[in-house]
């Protein structure tokens, strides 16, 4: 391992994001400029005067990571220094899908040669598990708490990959920290792609999702194996390289591993929500052709 993300960072034990950053930098190598919006990644990696980064890294504001990355790319181009490295922006789901959405859309539209990676831990974990537009249905967050009158989050996740594809990007992919080789392969492809590219990366937060820290990788694999997080690439608008499943697991296998869904298993209303989540997994399977037909 190249160890470009130094030890001593302040992420919780078992942090999915810390694994993700380590694997991303392993794939890109040291010739890369990284931009981060505000979020866990910024907080844990750069308490002044320390930093965990061994590559050039900058943080500016919550909403403008994509703009800063665009500026760096345009600057390198203007100075004729594009061969010095690729520009990478790594942000959380809040900084990408909520607060930074406008800047991100602008970056896509202007066609900057930047790879944007959104590590999606499905809420604002840094400030204490407030819901974001990426929080899945049924999840209990501090601003959508489950209780007598509510089963938690009521809105489905935003489809970030489709939003990126709608901008006409040449390379878009969904990835999971549970599949390290696949993730590193996708990061390499995205960085090598000329023009903007986007990776939507599922990354567990053991504190916010409330599962034991040792189960981080296992839980993320279960999201893929139940069909809730399909792994695929979209190259020039075509869905390719879908990870197909020989035997898709029921969504309960994924939901029961996490405290944020535990209330769903206690009431009839919860059972109905689980049926709704299963229907979403079935729809994913239908849309991306996840189920592998094995002749008996």
């Amino acid at each position, binding site marked *: *391992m190249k*160890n470009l*993300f*130094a*030890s*001593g*960072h*302040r*992420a*919780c*034990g*078992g*942090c*999915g994001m*810390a*694994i993700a950053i*380590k*694997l991303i930098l392993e794939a890109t190598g040291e010739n890369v400029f990284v931009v981060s919006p505000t979020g866990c990644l910024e907080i844990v*990696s*750069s*308490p*002044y*005067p*320390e*930093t*965990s*980064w*061994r*590559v050039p890294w900058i943080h500016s504001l919550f909403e403008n990571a994509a703009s800063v990355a665009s500026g760096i790319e345009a600057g390198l181009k203007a100075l004729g220094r594009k061969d010095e490295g690729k520009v990478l922006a790594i942000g959380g789901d809040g900084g990408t899908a909520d607060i930074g959405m406008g800047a991100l859309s602008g970056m896509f539209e202007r066609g900057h040669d930047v790879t944007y990676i959104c590590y999606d831990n499905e809420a604002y974990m840094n400030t204490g598990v407030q819901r974001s537009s990426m929080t899945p249905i049924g999840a209990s967050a501090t601003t959508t708490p489950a209780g007598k009158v509510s089963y938690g989050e009521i809105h489905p996740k935003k489809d970030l990959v489709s939003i990126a594809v709608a901008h006409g990007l040449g390379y878009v992919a969904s990835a999971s920290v549970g599949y*390290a080789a696949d993730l590193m392969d996708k990061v390499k492809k995205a960085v090598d792609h000329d023009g903007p590219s986007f990776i939507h990366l599922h990354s567990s937060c*053991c504190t916010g999702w409330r599962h*034991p*820290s*040792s*189960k*981080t*990788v*296992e839980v993320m694999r279960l999201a893929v194996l139940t069909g809730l997080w399909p792994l695929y690439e979209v190259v020039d608008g075509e869905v390719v390289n879908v990870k197909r499943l020989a035997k898709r697991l029921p969504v309960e296998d994924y939901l029961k591993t996490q405290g944020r869904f535990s209330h769903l298993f206690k009431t009839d209303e919860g059972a109905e929500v689980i049926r709704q989540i299963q229907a979403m997994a079935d729809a994913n399977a239908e849309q991306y052709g996840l189920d592998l037909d094995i002749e008996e």
Partner: protein
Amino acid sequence: MKLRIGAIADPGTSVVNLTGGWRTEIPRITPELCIRCFNCVIYCPESAVKYSDKEGIYFDYDYCKGCGICSNECSGHAIYMEMEEK
């Protein structure tokens, strides 16, 4: 501490922060069971699981936070967690 414009820090300086003190459980390895799948090296969030030809898999206890991912992902069931007494 010298303050600089725009809060610039030198690369990799967080290594001064020894996070090993966060640990309640400590990973141990039975080397005979290790099948060199390197899942522990790949998935350690702290980069605290290391490998050398001479020593095999070993842990950097200065930084290991004791999350237990290495033990959970170990294909050969070689890594186990133990309560650490300090």
